[in-house]
């Protein structure tokens, strides 16, 4: 068990086949919001997946709060993750999607219920609670995915492009949640291109400095 509240990456390396995405990557993330910016393909999502334990680093060490390593127990109890693609369980209602995560985190039943109601309300999803994801709009589904990541009030919250493709209204709802309801001592990493999120008080990490700029894109732009 790691008592630190920080995420520490030391000499982290990872690649897809022959393509090295991260090479001896060092970083230290403290509680609070950190926006990770960079070109597509620069490794932002990969970093989030490594921190979540969804990918295994080929070298280096990774320390996460509340666990020795980002394993299944860490994912159940301490991690909230929102993927780029919509990722709700299609056969479960919105409420059940949230409750399942609370139950997996071993929260007491009353707390699961209360947290579910709280985040459904904060994200304006109460009236859709008993509906299946397929009957919701893209914005509603994205808000639901974020509510699900928040329900256990995790110590590590990782959001991969949480507002991409969303209108301003939806974006403001999500920003409000990130700005004022981030759990205490929670390290929240947001990989994003969305400049609107820059309005939130945050730390920043420019990922482009780790990679050479794709010259052909510069020429095309």
């Amino acid at each position, binding site marked *: 068990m790691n008592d630190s509240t920080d995420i520490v990456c030391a000499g982290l390396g990872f690649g897809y086949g022959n393509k090295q995405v991260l090479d001896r990557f060092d970083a230290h993330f403290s509680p609070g919001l950190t926006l990770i910016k960079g070109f597509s393909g620069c490794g932002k999502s990969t970093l989030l997946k490594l921190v979540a334990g969804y*990918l295994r680093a080929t070298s280096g060490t990774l320390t996460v709060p509340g666990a020795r390593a980002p394993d299944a127990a860490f*994912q*159940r109890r301490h991690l909230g993750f929102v993927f780029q693609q919509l*990722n709700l*369980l299609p056969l*479960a209602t919105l409420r059940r999607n949230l409750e399942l995560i609370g*139950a*997996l985190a071993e929260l007491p039943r009353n707390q699961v219920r209360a947290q579910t109601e709280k985040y459904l309300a904060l994200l304006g999803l109460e009236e859709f609670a008993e509906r299946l994801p397929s009957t919701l709009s893209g914005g509603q589904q994205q808000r639901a995915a974020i509510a699900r990541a928040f329900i256990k009030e995790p110590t590590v919250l990782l959001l991969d492009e949480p507002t991409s493709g969303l209108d301003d209204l939806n974006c403001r709802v999500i920003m409000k949640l990130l700005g004022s309801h981030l759990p205490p001592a929670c390290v929240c990493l947001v990989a994003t291109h969305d400049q609107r999120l820059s309005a939130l008080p945050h730390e920043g990490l420019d990922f482009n400095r780790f990679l050479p700029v794709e010259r052909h894109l510069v020429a095309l732009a």
Partner: protein
Amino acid sequence: MKAWTLIAFYLSKDIWSRWLEHPGAVFARLFVGVLLAALLLFAQAGFMIAGRSLEMKVARLGAGTLLLTEVAGPERIGQPSLGRLLAPLGDRAQLIAFRQLPVSARDPLHGECLVLAYGRETFAALAPSLATVPPSAIYYVTAKLPSGVTLEVEIDGVLRSVVTVQPPTWLARLPLFNPLLIVPDELATAWEGQGHFEFCLLLADPSRPAEVRALAEGVRTILAMERRDTAQLQSPETLLDEIAALSLTRERTQALAGIAGGIVLALVFGAIASLEYRQNRYIVALLRSFGAPATLVLLRYAVEAVVLLALAGFGAGLLAANLHSYVFGFAGFEAGLLDRIVLDPYAPAEVWTQLRWLLVGALFSVVPISFALRQPVGRILQ
């Protein structure tokens, strides 16, 4: 616990949903399952009926029967009979010993009779037949007359009263075709002067071939020790060896058929499950991303395969039970062997014996999924 229940519930729902979405995949597995299970059940039933048929033949052939014969001339008078020599083996097999005497006997109605003398060692074998008829010095063994009838036969030129008895079942093992008159040794002394032809039956349990072999060895030892080289032993050892070889072949064939069925099932179920997994891997990865253990997900596929197999097994059981008499009747088995009250090849224990291989196959069908589950979640979810 609650979390696992919720996940299990979700996975059950997922199974049901996929069944509704892709009924073809379900029916394909059910069809293959029913077909294989029915084939294996019929094969097992065939083996069992064939085995039972063999057992009946074995019983008729006397696979537990040792027959000793000896022709004794006048020089043997005074020496112990074979029956007396073999009496110590009486606790390992039922001993029946008769000496056929060279005396003429005639039943006015049925013609020539054989006169057999029996000793103390044969009392036990005769007792059940003799206990039901009036006591007599001489009994007339015949199936042509009812038991307990007193009549007169001519023995050595003298008319004597005899009482009829039904032939005991073991008598069928002896090559005797004439009506028989049986007398105790004590009353036969007057007819022993010219020797006799003695035969002994040792009736052992044919289902215990090792004991039958040991008994035959015991008989040979006694004959050797007593120097009775004129005695001929007909032992069922060769027959027992053949039966053992047949049984072994049957068991091996049965096991091979089961294993082959299991392999085919594993391949078919595994291929379909792998295809379904490819369609479903996003959801599976999502569940794993929440921290749900891969074993739970694997269990979902195993449970699905087992449920489908159970349904297929049930269907095959019904099919086999209903077509049993037609199939095996058509195959030429005796009607008596097809009576499922006497021999039920579809009793739960028998069905389990055969279908356990399919169960193993069904469980093996999730092996490809277990390999697929080793792929990191981060490579599936975007």
